[in-house]
């Protein structure tokens, strides 16, 4: 795959779309919209996995794409919307940082990712390098989204967006064994169950998903 050929361009486009959606996650304030953006990003990730499966001739990536689409693109967003409705947290999300500073930080992180990955001059695979830079950017933006949000649910979405970046990195590497992708897909589901447990326990006791309100031990240790 080289610059200017169709497989390269499409893969690059899909990766860049995920990156743009990561930025959208950073500035979006309504909980429902945050979940929708996450779903969209997961769908783009599924498309990227399917495309890589075709371009690399690696049929196991079709499976990764299908799992991603079903679990992260459809099932998890539906579950999250249901949680939002049940807990009645439609209101907008408090952020610890304004939109402008977080966007500036985000751009800085993308620049950092490119600078870090750029020295990797792989002889054969240009795409791997570009893909890795994009994936690292998505990972870092997911981290930033987690830091700038105060609400547990949006933090969770930031975390899952971070994991989207990880899968993007994994599918972009030719010949990477399937083990990792499959297990990640399964584990995200498992992690989701754990999150669910948390939501209901937190809800039981505090009437809120705002982590700021349950901070008694950090002040009295």
């Amino acid at each position: 795959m080289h610059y200017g050929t169709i497989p390269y361009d499409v893969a690059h486009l899909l990766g860049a779309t995920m990156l743009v959606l990561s930025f959208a996650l950073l500035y979006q304030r309504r909980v429902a919209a945050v979940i929708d953006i996450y779903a969209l990003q997961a769908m783009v990730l599924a498309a990227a996995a399917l495309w890589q499966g075709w371009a690399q001739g690696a049929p196991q990536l079709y499976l990764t794409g299908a799992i991603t689409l079903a679990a992260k693109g459809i099932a998890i967003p539906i579950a999250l919307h249901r949680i939002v409705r049940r807990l009645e947290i439609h209101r907008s999300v408090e952020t610890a940082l304004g939109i402008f500073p977080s966007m500036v930080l985000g751009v800085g992180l993308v620049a950092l990712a490119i600078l870090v990955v750029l020295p990797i001059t792989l002889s054969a695979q240009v795409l791997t390098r570009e893909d890795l830079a994009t994936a690292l950017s998505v990972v870092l933006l997911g981290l930033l989204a987690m830091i700038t949000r105060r609400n547990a649910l949006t933090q969770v979405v930031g975390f899952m967006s971070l994991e989207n970046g990880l899968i993007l990195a994994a599918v972009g590497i030719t010949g990477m064994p399937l083990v990792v992708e499959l297990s990640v897909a399964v584990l995200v589901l498992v992690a989701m169950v754990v999150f669910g447990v948390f939501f209901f326990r937190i809800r039981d006791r505090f009437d809120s998903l705002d982590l700021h309100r349950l901070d008694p031990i950090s002040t009295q240790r």
Partner: protein
Amino acid sequence: MNLLPPADGLVVLLPLLGAITLGLVANHRIAARINILFALATFAAAVHLAYDPPPPGSFLLADRLSVHLALLTSFIGASTSFVSLGFIEAEMTAGLLDRRRARLYHAMYQALLAFMLLALLSDNTGLVWVSVEAATIAGVLVVGLPGTAEAVEASWKYFIVCGVGIALSLFGTIVLYLAAEPATGPGMAAMSWHTLLPAAARCNGIVLNLAFVFLLLGYGTKAALAPLHNWMPDAHAQGPTPVSAMLSGSMMNVALSVILRLRLLLGANAGAISPGPPIMALGLLSVLFAAFTLWRRNDVKRFFAVSSIEQGGVVAFAFGLGGAVPVFAGLLHLTLHTLVKTAIFGCVGWAAQRKGGQSFFRIGGLGHGTRAIGLLLAAAIVAIAGLPPFGLFVSEFMIITETMRRLPLLVIPLALGLLVGAWAMFARLQSLCLGPPTPDGGIAPAAGWTVYPALAHLALAAACGLLLPGMMSDWLGAIP
């Protein structure tokens, strides 16, 4: 590839089977005994693995390092299962746990053990990662088990901080594959420790650097190295005590062993950065940070969790220093710390149940009335402070003399941290074991469930201090 040959795979399959079985047993008394049976059987399987290791290239990586740590982990799992029996019994009597939670607790105990063993023994870096993640999830469930606001917060914090750490280490694992691919060829070979280490010199050095940064941050979080440690004191203070004991010793060992392997990998590659200094920096920072914050801790379990951060830092420092002697000393330190710290958590947990609270104001004067526990705890604190006759003195002595020989200036902060930490230990020893006894306010199990495992651990630690130039040194010396 041969998946899980039956005899060798038992060491991982048994606790997994145990987790499933215990998920079905509703009666907590029966469950606690089944838990002991499975933990003992797992230890037996680990001993078998040590005597008859599978050849390299099979599913499990049974080199000296992994077999040693698997033996240690399964031993801790077995001895702690006795402590756990008493602990759960008392918690149920006091009404602090219900049946559903006790069932989850026992299932997760075995799951935690299974995934830690798999992480230690797996040859595949991807599978190591999966096991660490699974062990983290099991740990999160257990820590949140008491269901109090503090426990929920602690387990949420544990999950988020370690979740991010784990995510970073997955990125590192992917990049590691990329770095190894030119040397080993595509496919499983680029993800197997036993093919990675011999091919280290031919890996892509720059890519290896990138992988190292992410893996160090990721597994450093699991090893609770400062500044990535802040989930650990909360998780230990809130979780059920037997699990605190397992997490404190064994989870840290899993992460530190990965860091040690990484160090060997990068050390053998000319194009990569020198891995020693970053690991040493994290280790030294942990020692200093923990030593000085020990003074401000009022919660007994939190106090000893911070002490684990300190000891983990000593081990990381030794691993970072590199070379035969420091790595040997680091492994010895890690082994003995695990033994002693598990004994401490056993005693402290018992005392917290009896006194009905876990702050230092509630627990004091254990030497009166509860003499066996008080004496054992005092001995264990002396051991963890690094005094003879216990083996931690030997390992710390070796690490300090080796540092003095190679990097004399670093001895000052290291020794300062160790001294301040030991001093804090003695300050607490006074009130915990010697002072006037505080009133009892809770229900404690029969002391025997705690005393005998703790006694066994301390006897082993003392034996390593007194008889070290024997079997133990041959065994550990063959690792690096």
